[in-house]
């Protein structure tokens, strides 16, 4: 499958040889070929390996999805590698391993390391999180510009901060388009699928209530389509596949993918339901950090990555989206504003709301 050459065996020797970096990517259940989140990280590593001939990468999978199990999986293999890439919030606790293994480097994606005895930063851990609200914002703008029925929606998994960020970012984007581009899109929410965030505040939106329940995802999708929604922004993990199915089965409905380019998931007999995908650019950031390691410039830190480092964004390739040229133009326009920090879309805990944020 995803794994390549065995890296174990001749331990310390390889390390002396500066270039022969041994990399492991440890993933939670879905593995490196999930066509999504994990795969994007893996692609970053593969790109690096391509340019550094004798670097090796091994894919290791943890099958339960439990946080303790995730950390255990890292602990099981860490001795055999120089760098461990861990995509996913499940791996926040690797900080304990990092502390014990100062010579190993860790690239943690989508979470900050769990503090150990009050220590929040670790010299050997580069943790990247993304401003999901920015990606959501681009989705919102695109949806508002492209809708025919004037009704758009966002579907999420559970109202954890990352999901609320996507939701509010999306709503911010719709608001922005309505105000600045003369659209009049309405964000449809089903009261019965409203989310309650981690502070127990009702945040509205459409939450499936689960990340691995495509059946309910489809029910939510259908319900929204029934309400007249024609563009759905889907950030709901595995449950999202159900929303895609609902869209494929209906006529003239489009979805906006998230995290990675999901164009291939949208293919069906009638064409493709993916309008576009909004991104967290994990692969380029993973590759950047791997390069930093070989160059010796690696520095542990906890980074919230934004558009200003091209870390959030949307799909550009012409054959990977179905936006009109006009919409693309407007998206590029707002992209620059977001990059510049002029627009700061509302997020779960940044103090702004979708109808009142800087740049609106």
């Amino acid at each position, binding site marked *: 499958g995803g794994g390549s050459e065995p890296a174990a065996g001749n331990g310390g020797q390889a390390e002396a040889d500066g270039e022969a970096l041994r990399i492991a990517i440890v993933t939670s259940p879905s593995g490196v070929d999930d066509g999504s989140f994990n795969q994007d990280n893996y692609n970053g590593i593969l790109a690096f390996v391509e340019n550094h001939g004798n670097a090796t990468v091994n894919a290791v999978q943890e099958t339960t999805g439990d946080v303790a199990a995730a950390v255990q999986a890292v602990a099981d293999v860490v001795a055999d590698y120089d760098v461990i890439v861990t995509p996913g919030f499940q791996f926040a606790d690797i900080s304990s391993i990092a502390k014990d293994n100062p010579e190993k480097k860790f690239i943690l994606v989508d979470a900050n390391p769990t503090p150990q005895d009050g220590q929040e930063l670790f010299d050997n851990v580069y943790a990247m999180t993304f401003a999901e609200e920015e990606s959501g914002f681009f989705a919102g703008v695109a949806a508002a510009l492209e809708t025919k029925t004037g009704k758009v929606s966002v579907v999420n998994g559970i109202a954890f901060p990352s999901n609320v960020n996507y939701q509010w970012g999306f709503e911010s984007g719709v608001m922005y388009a309505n105000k600045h581009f003369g659209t009049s899109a309405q964000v449809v929410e089903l009261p019965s699928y409203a989310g309650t965030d981690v502070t127990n505040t009702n945040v509205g939106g459409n939450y499936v209530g689960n990340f691995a329940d495509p059946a309910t995802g489809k029910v939510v999708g259908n319900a929204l389509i029934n309400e007249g929604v024609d563009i759905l922004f889907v950030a709901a993990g595995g449950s999202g596949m*159900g929303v895609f199915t609902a869209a494929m089965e209906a006529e003239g409905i489009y979805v906006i993918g998230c995290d990675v380019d999901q164009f291939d998931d949208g293919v069906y007999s009638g064409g493709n339901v993916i309008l576009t995908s909004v991104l967290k650019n994990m692969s380029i950031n993973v590759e950047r950090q791997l390069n930093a390691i070989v160059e010796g410039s690696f520095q542990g830190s906890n980074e919230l990555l934004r558009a200003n480092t091209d870390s959030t964004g949307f799909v550009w390739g012409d054959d990977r989206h179905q936006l009109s040229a006009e919409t693309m133009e407007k998206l590029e326009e707002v992209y620059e504003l977001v990059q510049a920090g002029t627009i700061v879309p509302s997020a779960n805990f940044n103090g702004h709301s979708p109808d009142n944020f800087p740049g609106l």
Partner: protein
Amino acid sequence: MMDRMIIDGLAFALPLFIIAVGGIYSERSGIINLALEGLMGFGAFSGALAVVLVLRSFPGLQPQGIYIAMIFAMVGGALFATIHAALCIYFKANQVISGVVINILSVSLTAFLTRQLNSLIFKAPSDRFQLGVANRITIPGLSEIPVLGAAFRNLYPFQIAIILVAVAAYVLFEKSRYGMRLRACGDNPHAVAAAGVDVERIRFSAVVISGALAGLGGISFAYSISANFSPMIYMGYGYLAIAALIFGNWGMTTTLGAALLFGFARSGGYELARALEMSSTFNDITMTLPYVLTLILLIFFSKTNRVPRSLGEIYDKGKR
């Protein structure tokens, strides 16, 4: 709202039903079939693989994809079921255990093969086979009936296939020579053997049929829920089918009732949640509706339940 409840309820109930019919075949022949979950999954895997392979060479067949998938899902499910049949019938394994083992094997094997095949054959690492969606069919005339007309609207092709297959399965089971012998095997295989009928052959074929039917149900779920095959197909619907057939007292029509109950309780639960405007956190609670309802109904209906008499007994010719 009623419409949606009927349409969604049916789309869920029918695949569940056909899996349960598979279970009935096996169990009424005397072989406990806890392997339905695994058979369903392996069937779905086979169907999906076939579709992906065919479409690679003949992309023009996209609209026929679902039919290809259904046929191969039945073939795959049937082939995989031979393991259960051989274990239970020729190797005299404990049938409960064999079923559980088949399930474990199915999950790991399909996950493993999906990955291997994707990277080996398609050179595109992935953990799933993309299926595309099924077109939906509305039957003119019948669909105009008020309220109940919904049952004839927005049908998946597999629903119609399931109904056809189920009718055939019913006739074979209840009216044919084979069916009569099969049901007798579940009651007293020694009587069947003494009548000069090969019990082992009957049981083997019954288990194989159960695999085919479970496979058909599995590919239907794959199409209707996520439009792809991935290990996510193992959501316990095979076990639910077992519950339905026991609830249905191992009879076909009663099991259809049980499956419909599950389907409508499920879609009804969604509608109820929507009507009450409860927040999404309560989803978990409304999702329990079919299961709670089943338990309560079982209290009233289980008293008369009659397990096939020889179910689970290892058949030994010389047994006295």
